[in-house]
């Protein structure tokens, strides 16, 4: 039992952090996703970690770093795939919104209701020519499809496997966002002066930051637990671990996004400060691989009921 990053994992984390810091500064992140983002991450081995013999715990470490840097793109859907891929988990009946549709080769469709997993070529999907004008997250463009997407091809992976992997990696990304938001809020609170002192010296502000740190740390422990159970199913109950990870990490990212906005005050409401980009991404991830309500219900389902 060693529930901490191994030396290899620390090296992996530092390596990917250096890549993100060096190649994906916020100036580039703000330009959004394109194929060069995919190429660079693919070349670094981000999407082929499993095929290259890495564990899910390693993948969680890597995706946390991507989240810290807010690297844009359908990065969770690209995991384990060679072609540029986006996806969605929603009912396949009727029109829907698909993130990154105009920028990818393939679309993976997961329908929780029908437990369907399939992949469709993006070019075969009947969708609007242009992305929607006012996406919630400026770095996550969305296209409206006019009708249900085509049949495509059945995927080899089971619904559960895709869902669990997607929830885990999304949760890991959210932990990175929650942690980075804490750092940003603390740094701003120590720099911003009001009443002739840093606002970070006031308990009302410090306590917000303390709660942010707790949320990020608890979420990280949950995500690492889920990753360990993915690697070895005898170490826990997978459904419970995944639900806990996505719930705790999603909440941490959203609440820390809101908290950072509050600490930044008026600046937090500006386009210029990065906080809103993190918060918007957190809100978007709440719609993917189950939101907090879904996973809270899933967790409750693992608890005893009246017989």
């Amino acid at each position, binding site marked *: 039992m060693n*529930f*901490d990053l*191994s030396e290899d*994992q620390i090296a992996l984390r530092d390596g990917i952090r250096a890549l993100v810091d060096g190649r994906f500064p916020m100036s580039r992140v703000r330009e959004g996703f394109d194929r060069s983002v995919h190429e660079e991450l693919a070349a670094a081995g981000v999407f082929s970690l499993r095929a290259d013999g890495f564990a899910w*715990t390693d993948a969680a470490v890597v995706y946390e770093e991507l989240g810290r840097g807010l690297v844009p793109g359908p990065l969770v859907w690209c995991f384990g795939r060679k072609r540029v891929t986006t996806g969605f988990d929603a009912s396949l009946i009727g029109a829907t919104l698909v993130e990154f549709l105009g920028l990818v080769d393939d679309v993976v469709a997961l329908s929780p209701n029908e437990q369907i997993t399939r992949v469709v070529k993006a070019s075969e999907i009947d969708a609007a020519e242009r992305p929607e004008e006012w996406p919630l997250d400026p770095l996550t463009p969305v296209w409206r499809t006019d009708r249900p997407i085509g049949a495509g091809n059945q995927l080899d992976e089971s619904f559960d496997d895709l869902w669990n992997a997607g929830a885990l990696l999304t949760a890991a990304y959210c932990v990175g966002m929650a942690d980075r938001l804490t750092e940003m809020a603390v740094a701003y609170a120590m720099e911003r002066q009001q009443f002739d002192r840093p606002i970070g*010296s006031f308990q009302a502000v410090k306590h917000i930051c*303390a709660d942010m740190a707790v949320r990020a740390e608890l979420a990280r422990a*949950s995500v690492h*637990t889920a990753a360990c159970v993915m690697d070895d199913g005898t170490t826990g109950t997978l459904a419970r671990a995944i639900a806990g990870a996505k719930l705790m990490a999603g909440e941490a990212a959203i609440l820390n996004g809101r908290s950072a906005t509050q600490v930044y005050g008026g600046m937090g409401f500006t386009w210029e400060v990065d906080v809103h980009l993190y918060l918007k991404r957190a809100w978007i991830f709440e719609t993917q691989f189950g939101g907090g309500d879904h996973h809270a*219900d899933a967790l409750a389902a693992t608890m005893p009921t009246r017989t």
Partner: protein
Amino acid sequence: MDLRFSDADEAFRSELRAWLARVLPGLAPQPARDDWDARRVWDTDWQRQLFDAGYAGLNWPKEYGGQAAPPSQQLVFLEETTRARAPYVGVNFVGLLHAGPTIVAEGTPEQKAAHLPKILRGDEVWCQGFSEPGAGSDLASLRTRAVRDGDHYVVTGQKIWCSYGQIGDFGELLVRTNPDAPKHKGITWLMLPMDLPGIEVRPLKTVLGSSEFAELFLDEVRVPVDCRVGEENDGWRVTNVTLAFERGTAFVSDLVDATRLVEDLAPYVTDPAHRRELGHITADLDAIWALTKRNVTQSARGVVGRGPFMIKLAYSEVCQKMGELALRVLERNVLTVNAEGPFVEERLRSLAFTIAAGTSQIQRNILSERVLGMPREPR
């Protein structure tokens, strides 16, 4: 990162599981909650059984009766005792989780030999004398005086919130030995034999209607200098050793209790909105347990991470959430405290969790200042 236990740990687990299955059915019924003499007997009997079976002081040094077991086995012990619903430390709390670890870290060889084996065997019960009526969150402003007189300190003052004060054999006592020094520099940590003349113990009735705490009145109590742990006037540092321990792992066993309680509550929770809240509470408790595993892993390697500063803050708040859920679920059954299991009682008890051992507000100060490096509020 790997949650798998070693073969040795798994062997430890199966032996422990078999032992628990053998001894737990023979356990006497728990005594009434305000019958402190009976509670002492019951809790220390259990401690003695643990000791005889080799399960006491898992993380304490071998030479003083401990097991010096790896941290992974401490986790296995907590997992298995929770699963089997074995008794919890009870009146041994201060000795096992507070005073004992302090003596392990700071005591002389003589002090260790005199107290640690007895604590582990259940032969010695400890109580706590830290807080004072005028020194709560600002503990370092304590005013209980100790004046050196030859081989003794003569101690006069008043303590409050003394856990298990009525039945303690020894108390961990903070006194002011230098009133002229800055407040953190004039404090000394003493072991107080509770049978010395001049000590008056008055039970303190809490919102539960029972007396888990006492007030302590000290009138020229002569405490031998041998009872000093650490150097004179170095008591604040010694205290922080204890408090750091308290924040880090002392609440692990409470977490075990909370995990049991939420499982017991779950069958009563039927409304979908309440079930959803149960899911949130379960996620919180699972996460705190996971963070505990991280803390244990790190402490075994001598690393002090962020986690130890967070456990108590997170745990105390989720316990209160659980208590509120219980009250809503039980509806009019809450009109008597003990009608449906321990839920209402635990809700009352958990009111103290965000106050005792450093309020949640103080925990957030410590976390933001020591972990996040934020400036102190002007004071």
